[in-house]
């Protein structure tokens, strides 16, 4: 064994040979790094572009124009009999008060057409606002109060500078006459921009200035609640059974392949399935978050199962052996040791699956969650829509004021997405264990 080992390569100047190839190797590495940088910068550029576009379009929607009207709460109009009967107060002609108030601001306006244009300055919600004020405080009747009412969407759009006043009158939605009134109101300090709480407190509306995302938010909440309550326990149980208990044979292989395939099925197919099974066969209500949640559960389940199995396999076998060696039964081994260790990974996978479900619209179109619904849903059986579908609905509408609301709704949706993904990252960092 003491023979010197002969070199495998023929004796040549190894140093020179290596050096000759070195420049080439380094160049290849530099090129690769450059490609990576270019790819990342491109990706980041598009993300920045998207956010810039959405935010620049959407942020004006968080502000809304109000007009101050000197409203004379005329007893003759509101409560001619003077009994303060709530029923009478409720059915009084508050629109007349708004009209009278506008007339009092611009007494020179005459003629049906011009007057109608004048009345259109205030939102159609102004009479409702007056009614609420009177019902709340009947002593207002007989007095004259300054009241801030919503401006119409056209006025709001103009005030926000989204309508070019240098355009020809026939080409813009607001006429010269209206512009003169708005300028006058502005000069009198009767115009103000306030935070748009309506966007967050109201359901959908045909009038842009009264439209809000509350209905869609609640719809999304109930839908996701159903999705989570169904898909998380079922998904975790499936993952645990398949990974820890099921025998490895042709059937489980088949199931595994199918679950992986299900994760890749286009979501609209799940919508069709939901329509055929849940609505047509089981007769569940249309447009309900319950059905939406069922459909989204079908879609989220494979994601949770796959993430759950990955989390379970990442638990080291030594922990399983330790538990079994102590005489723990299989269920005890899983329940006491494997599942707690796999839980952070499972939760992360579930949250990411839920975030995907939150952004899903196509399958919900199929089950009727695309209807125009003004009422805010109060449960999982009420007709509802969800945020992405609301965005889709608003994006379809012609009014200029809906453009900014669409972007604002997208911002809210993105905020929730970022929140959920952030939560997933925090959970993972917080509870991750290393061996």
């Amino acid at each position, binding site marked *: 064994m003491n023979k010197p080992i002969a070199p495998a390569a023929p004796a040549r100047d190894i140093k020179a040979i290596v050096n000759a190839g070195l420049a080439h190797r380094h160049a290849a590495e530099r090129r690769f790094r450059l490609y990576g940088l270019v790819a990342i910068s491109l990706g980041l550029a598009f993300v920045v572009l998207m956010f810039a576009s959405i935010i620049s379009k959407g942020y004006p929607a968080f502000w809304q124009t109000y007009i101050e009207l000197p409203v004379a709460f005329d007893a003759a109009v509101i409560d001619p009999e003077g009994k303060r009967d709530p029923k009478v107060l409720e059915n009084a002609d508050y629109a007349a008060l708004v009209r009278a108030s506008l007339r009092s601001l611009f007494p020179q306006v005459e003629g049906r057409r011009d007057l109608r244009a004048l009345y259109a300055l205030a939102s159609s919600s102004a009479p409702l606002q007056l009614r609420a004020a009177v019902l709340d405080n009947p002593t207002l009747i007989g007095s004259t109060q300054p009241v801030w009412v919503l401006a119409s969407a056209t006025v709001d759009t103009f005030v926000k500078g989204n309508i070019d006043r240098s355009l020809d009158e026939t080409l813009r939605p607001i006429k010269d006459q209206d512009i003169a009134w708005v300028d006058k109101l502005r000069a009198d300090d009767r115009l103000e921009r306030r935070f748009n709480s309506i966007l967050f407190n109201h359901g959908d509306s045909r009038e842009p200035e009264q439209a809000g995302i509350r209905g869609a938010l609640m719809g999304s909440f109930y839908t996701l609640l159903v999705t989570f309550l169904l898909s998380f326990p079922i998904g975790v149980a499936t993952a645990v059974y398949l990974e820890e208990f099921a025998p490895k044979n042709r059937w489980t292989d088949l199931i595994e392949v199918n679950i992986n395939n299900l994760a890749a099925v286009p979501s609209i197919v799940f919508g069709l399935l939901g329509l055929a099974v849940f609505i047509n066969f089981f007769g569940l209500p249309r447009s309900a978050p319950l059905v939406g949640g069922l459909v989204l559960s079908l879609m989220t389940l494979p994601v949770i199962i796959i993430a759950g199995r990955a989390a379970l396999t990442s638990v080291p076998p*030594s*922990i399983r*052996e*330790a538990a079994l060696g*102590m*005489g723990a039964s299989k269920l005890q081994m899983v329940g006491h040791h494997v599942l707690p260790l796999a839980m952070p990974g499972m939760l992360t996978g579930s949250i990411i699956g839920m975030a995907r479900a939150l952004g899903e619209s196509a399958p919900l179109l199929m089950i009727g969650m695309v209807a125009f619904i003004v009422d805010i849903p109060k449960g999982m059986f009420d007709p509802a829509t969800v945020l992405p579908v609301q965005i889709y609905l608003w994006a379809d509408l012609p009014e200029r004021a809906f453009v900014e609301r669409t972007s604002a709704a997208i911002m809210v949706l993105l905020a929730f997405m970022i929140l959920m993904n952030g939560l997933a990252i925090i959970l993972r960092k917080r509870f991750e264990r290393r061996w």
Partner: protein
Amino acid sequence: MSTTPLEINTPLDGATTSSRASGNPLSSTQITDYDHRQTVGKITVDNPKMTCRGVNVYYGAKQALKNVSLDIGANEVIAFIGPSGCGKSTFLRCLNRMNDTIPGCRVAGEIRLDQEDIYDRSLDVVQLRARVGMVFQKPNPFPKSIYENVAYGPRIHGMVQNKAELDALVIASLERAGLLKEVEKRLEEPGTGLSGGQQQRLCIARAIAVNPEVILMDEPCSALDPIATAKIEELIDELRENYTIVIVTHSMQQAARVSQRTAYFHLGDLIEIGETDQIFTNPRHKLTEDYITGRFG
């Protein structure tokens, strides 16, 4: 390397082997035929705790253990040695049916614990593993507190009535594992935070907390430094009073230090078994001699 017709027939009690002087005058080896695969030496003991007869283990189509028969005496330390892949760990894992967890693994033959067939259908594996504890090659404490690690076994088997009893049992087990002094002040700290040697002693404490009859140790010191190894070996020697210990080891010195009997495995066959002194000073089979003199393995 299948079983060729045997030239030498060794009786199971191993009392006599036909002498076949080898070429090496320094060696007392009686069997020089490398293909001889029948166990040499006395496989039986007077008071057996476990008896194994004709154990065959298959991983799928591959046979990992061929017709192994031996006795494990009560309160003895028996060491299994042999080169990697010889089946010693496989055999160890048959003794508490840990092989059940490996898909495709099949065990044939008979293994009895106190005359009870442990592969009998009526015997619950949970009960078996409570009686035959195991310590693994890599220290594998649960990622829980030191206290919880030791308390786990008694708790799942319902061996204690109340917290005070459990506390006493945990303390006693740690004491017996020689770990109490080092961890007394930090029972609530995670067991994974201990050093490798301490972790392994924690695993031993965890195993003896359920008061098993037999403790199986699968290369318990292979991941430890010499000082930690010495402590574990000392512990094994003390534990012998109360337990039967089966230890698999790659270190022949360790086998010589801690065990009373030694079994040498080679490629799935039990080649030789006997008193540890005899195996290391006077091996009868050429394969054993080659191994212990470091010619391969």
